[in-house]
Structures are given as C-alpha cells and as structure tokens.
C-alpha cells in the first residue's frame, strides 16, 4: 500500500516535470559541493555564475537555468547525478567534473543520450583517445599535458633525476605518465598512494630522500597538496631536494600552504595574471563579486565552459535540438577564452599554451601565483591519434 502510494507520488512528480519545450536553456552542473574538496566545486560554481552574469543570464535571448548536483567526489554518486540530470531534468548540456574517475563513470550516460558534456576539469587519457565522442568537449586539458610541460621545464633546468609521487587513481597515473614522457633524465622511483584516504606521506618522503634523486615531482590536488607541502617542509627537504608540481598549488590551497609554497614551480594553462582583457575582466569581477576569494584555474575553466555553451546556443538561435550544428560551432571554439589562444583538436581537447607559474608575494603582501614564462605553445595531447574522430 505504502509502496503504491510512493509510486503514485513519483509518477505525479514525473508528469509535473515540464517537457523540454525549449523556452529555457537547461544546464546540469556536476561537481563536488560537500566534503573537504567542496571548495573546488564552490569556485567552479562561482565562476560559472559570474559567466552567466556577464552573459546577462541569457543565451540567444533565452533564460538559462542551471541545476547544480553534488558528486561527493564519488564515481557512483556522480554517475547517479548525471543520470538524474539527463533523464529526469532533461538538461541540454551537462558541465563540471573535477575528478577523472567520476567523469569516466558518468561518461557513458551522457554519450548514449547524446547530451553535450563539457568537462571543466577532468581530462582522463581515455577521453582524449579511444573514448572520445562527438558529444564531449573539454575546456580544461588532457591530464598528461600539464605534467608534460613540467617535464619539459625540468629538462630546461638541467635536472638529471626525479622521484615521482602521486595518488593511485586515473588522473594520478596519467600525471606521472605525462612527466615520464617528456622528462629526459632518470626516473629513480615512482610511488602511488591510496586516494583519497591517505594523507600521511612520511613513508614516501623517506623513500624519496633515500633514493638520492635530484628532484621530486608530485601531483596532489586540493587539501592533499597542503598536507604534502607541510610534510615536505617538516622533513627538511625544502632546501635539499627541489620540488616540481602539477595541480598542487592553486589559489584555494595557497592560503593554507603559506610560506611552504614559496618558490615551488608548477605548470598551468591558466594563471590569474595572464594579460588578456577577458581574463582581467574575469579576475577583477570575481574578486568584486566574491569578496575575499580569488578565482582558480578550476574556475577559469568553468567560466570558459559557460562561454563555449553560449557560442553554440547563439549559433542555432536557441534551438538546442540542432545538435549537429551546435557541435560544428563548438569545434570552432568561437569564444574568447580567458587563457588566450584556444582551439580544438580532433578529439575536442584544447590545443593551448602551458605556462610556468611561481609563488610570489604580491603588492598587498599576499602570496599569489605569477606567470613566469611560457613553457610550451599550442600543445596538443599525445592521445589524439587514438581518437577515431577525424577533422
């Protein structure tokens, strides 16, 4: 009886859902809004909302509705939320995804339903290669690209040997593989840690120290990056073995890492001080709208995602049923990215520059990230040949 009641209720609710009549542009946004990494999700949401403000909260004259869903950093939850957004909310676009493992779990649902998925962070190698899809676009990078740039930079510095440490999940493996593919010196050791539960890296740091490597490379996004730098400094390694990083120091972790992060280089496709007018507007308005906060690369990618969607919606004059035309428009990357030069490869992964960033004290005496040099220009990921889509 009770069951029948619930069932009836659910059906009424399902009927009450407005059909996708096309008077609003519906966007689903899957990211992490709870737990220790919620700060990343918040930054992505803030930036996406700011982009909508800049667009007048309309695309091709139609109001935009965004539904935010929390994946809790768990692949199974992310998949459920993706299904919910596509099947019951009937969104036109689905955006977000911080974590490669969450994206990989959710990918099939989006592709099978021919819903456009814009990943605003995760870039697993599979997505750039065999799993590439006409319905999937990235406004970030493929995981290997950033550490590849770090490897190139280490070659420039004449580093002879490195010890690699990273988390044991899809992105961690891509990151370490990325450094190895460009770094010309010797890789003396490679350690993977349990993700996301392991937060104490004493055993790994001891091994790195005893390996006599000339340098250490790590990839630890979010709070894990704070913990790693703490322990690296406490072990007295800071003056001893130089550290190179990818996605370990950003505007969210920097207030916690403080002096520990000073002088530790990393590579990134976006840095807050890039001299493009779109970027200045983004950074300034972000700091105005969200006082006390600074945008991160996660946010910059989400901001770009909103503009990419807008370009597609404008091209079809708001008729989101014209999927082929929207796809063709997005492939042109017909929008101004805050990171500057931006075009798409055959696999819908950006071809873009990677910059060397350093931690410095800015004019207000606060620690901030600064662009030092361009490491590689117009870099394309190394999996695009494996993607069956051709230009």
């Amino acid at each position, binding site marked *: 009886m009770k069951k029948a009641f619930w069932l009836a209720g659910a059906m009424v609710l399902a009927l009450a859902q407005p059909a996708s009549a096309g008077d609003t542009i519906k966007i689903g946004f899957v990211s992490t809004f709870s*737990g*220790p990494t*919620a*700060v990343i999700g*918040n930054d992505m949401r803030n930036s996406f909302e700011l982009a909508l403000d800049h667009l007048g909260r309309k695309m091709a004259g139609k109001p935009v509705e965004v539904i935010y869903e929390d994946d809790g950093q768990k692949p199974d939850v992310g998949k459920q939320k993706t299904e919910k957004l596509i099947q019951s909310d009937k969104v036109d676009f689905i955006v977000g995804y911080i974590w490669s493992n969450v994206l990989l779990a959710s990918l099939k649902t989006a592709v099978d339903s021919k819903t456009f998925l814009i990943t605003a962070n995760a870039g697993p190698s599979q997505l750039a290669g065999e799993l590439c899809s006409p319905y999937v676009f990235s406004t970030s990078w493929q995981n290997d690209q950033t550490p590849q740039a770090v490897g190139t930079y280490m070659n420039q510095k004449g580093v002879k040997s490195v010890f690699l440490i990273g988390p*044991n999940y899809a992105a961690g*493996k891509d990151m370490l593989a990325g450094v190895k593919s460009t770094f010309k010196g010797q890789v003396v050791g*490679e*350690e*993977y*840690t*349990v993700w996301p*539960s*392991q*937060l*104490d890296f*004493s*055993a*790994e740091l*001891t*091994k790195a120290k*005893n390996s006599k490597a000339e340098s250490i490379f790590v990839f630890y996004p979010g*709070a894990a990056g*704070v*913990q790693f730098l*703490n*322990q690296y*400094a*406490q*072990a*007295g390694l800071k003056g001893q073995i130089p550290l190179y990083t990818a996605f370990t120091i950003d505007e*969210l972790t920097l*207030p*916690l*890492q*403080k002096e520990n992060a000073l002088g530790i280089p990393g590579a990134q496709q976006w840095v807050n001080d890039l001299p493009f007018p779109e970027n200045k507007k983004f950074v300034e308005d972000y700091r105005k709208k969200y006082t006390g906060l600074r945008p991160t690369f996660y946010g910059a990618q989400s901001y770009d995602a909103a503009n990419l969607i807008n370009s597609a919606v404008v091209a079809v004059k708001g008729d989101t049923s014209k999927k082929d035309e929207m796809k063709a428009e997005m492939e042109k990357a017909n929008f101004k990215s805050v990171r500057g030069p931006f075009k798409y490869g055959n696999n819908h992964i950006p071809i873009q520059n990677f910059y060397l960033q350093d931690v410095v004290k800015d004019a207000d005496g606060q620690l901030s990230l600064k662009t030092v040099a361009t490491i590689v220009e117009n870099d394309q990921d190394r999996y695009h040949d494996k993607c069956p889509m051709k230009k």
Partner: protein
Amino acid sequence: MLVLIEQSLNGLQFGLLLFLLAAGLTLVFGIMDFVNLAHGSLYMMGAYFAATFVAWTNSFVLGILMALGATLLLGIALEFIALRHLYGRDHLDQVLATFGLILFFNDAVRLIWGPAGLSLPLPAWLTVPVQIVPGVFYPAYRLSIIVVALAVAAMLYFVVMRTRIGMLIRAGASNREMIGALGINIKLLFTLVFGLGAALAGLAGLMQAPILTVQIGMGENILILAFVIIVIGGIGSIRGAFMAAIFVGMIDTLGRAFLPDLLRTVLSSAAASTAAPALSSMLIYLLMAIVLVVRPEGLFPASKR
C-alpha cells in the same frame, strides 16, 4: 638499514597517534558499552580548537593546552547533554544517534569556521629535522609526537593500574553492574571516562593537525582504523589498544614502504606500482580478519566479564 630505522619511526609515530584515538574509544566502548561514532568528530574538534587558539594566543604550546582543555569540556558537555540518555538503549540506537552527531559537528564546523579548512603552522623550533643516529635525520615534530604519545601512554598506564580511579575503571570494564551495586557513583565515573576519551581524541587531532590540514570530516577515515585497532587489541583493553595500534601503524607504513619493491621483483614495474598501495592498505584488514578468526576476543582482552 638506515632506511629501515627511519621507516620504523614513521610507523611508530603513526601507530602512537592511532593509539591516542583508540584508547579513548576502547575505554568508552569497553567500560560504558557505548558505541561512539562521534569519536572522530572530537578528534576534528581538537584540531579546530588548536588552530583557533594558536592563532589567538600566538603561542603554539599555550594554544594546544587550551585546545586540550576545550575538548575535555566539550566531551563532558556532550556526555551530559546527549549521550547519557542513550546508555540503556541498544547499540543500533547509539550508532544512529552518534552518526547524527557526526553530521551535526561537520555542519557546525562549516558554519563557524567555513568550508575551506584551517592550517596550524608549527613554531620554527619544531620544523627542523633532528639527527637521531648518524645519517638519519627525522622531522622534529614527528619525533615530538612520539615522545608526547609515549608519555601519555605511560601516564594512562599509571592511572589505570595504580590509582583508585583506575581501579574503578578496570572494575567497570570487567563488570559494570557489580561496581554499581557496590555503591560507586557510576554516572560520575562514566562522565569522567568519556571526558578522558574526548581529551585523548582531541590530543590526537591537534597533534595530527600541523602534519595534515584541519578540515571537515578529517576524523572519519581515521576512526575506521581506530575501530580496527580496538577489535584487534580486545575491546576495553588499554594495553591491547597500545599493542594493536603499534602493529597497525607499523604494518601500514612498512607495507607502503617496502611492498612496492618486493612486488617489483615478481611483477612488472607498472603493475607493481598500482597493486602495492591497494595491497598495503588491505594488510591491516587482513590482520583484523585473522585475529577475528583465531582470537575473536582480541589479542590482549580486558579481564573476562
């Protein structure tokens, strides 16, 4: 050889930290027969208090002492307001109620301190590595964790084995009804034990804080390990918790340190690097499973009830 010494110290430090957390849990579980899932929240509160007080007072030692007192008071208040009404209920009710407390504490922290987490910087004299034997440098702070935890363990041993309160605690662990019948104020004893457990959890949290970040939900992963330890050591037994915590700390750290190299001798390098962290995190659960089969009452059970 030197590497082995250093990795063993890492394991010892991790084990002792786990002991502080497990000691409180085993006391509360063993003596009061109360399942407290919110023990990890007290660990988190200890860390948040420490980060706040150290920032206020600008003194690391003073801030930490204040945080310790605050966690003790919080534990006593928690017991007095909420938990003492649950003693007569069965374990499922207690699990549900204390799980609710976890959610309460997580959101309370989010409201008070915000979602971003805090950092607890160390004073300069604790950030330098110390040479313990020629050729082995060890972080001073980790060394101080070992010293403090060993001192606390010794003190706990003295209190439990050599004082009147300790006698009552041991009597409570063996037979709760009997000491009540002998006219001991069991309510007061329970409040005291719970406060002590809370302070120990807070101590573990605030000592871990400079190594990790202070963040919401930081107590949840480590609580699982604490439960594993009290199961291995025997519920209610401080000595068991101590031995089991050292075992678990050592197995976990040495597994992470040496398993990848061992596996590399039989597997390809890539396969070994991915399999090793998974296997080493399984080792402690394997140990627990074996203990449960061979000695279900734990390795060092408290005296029989």
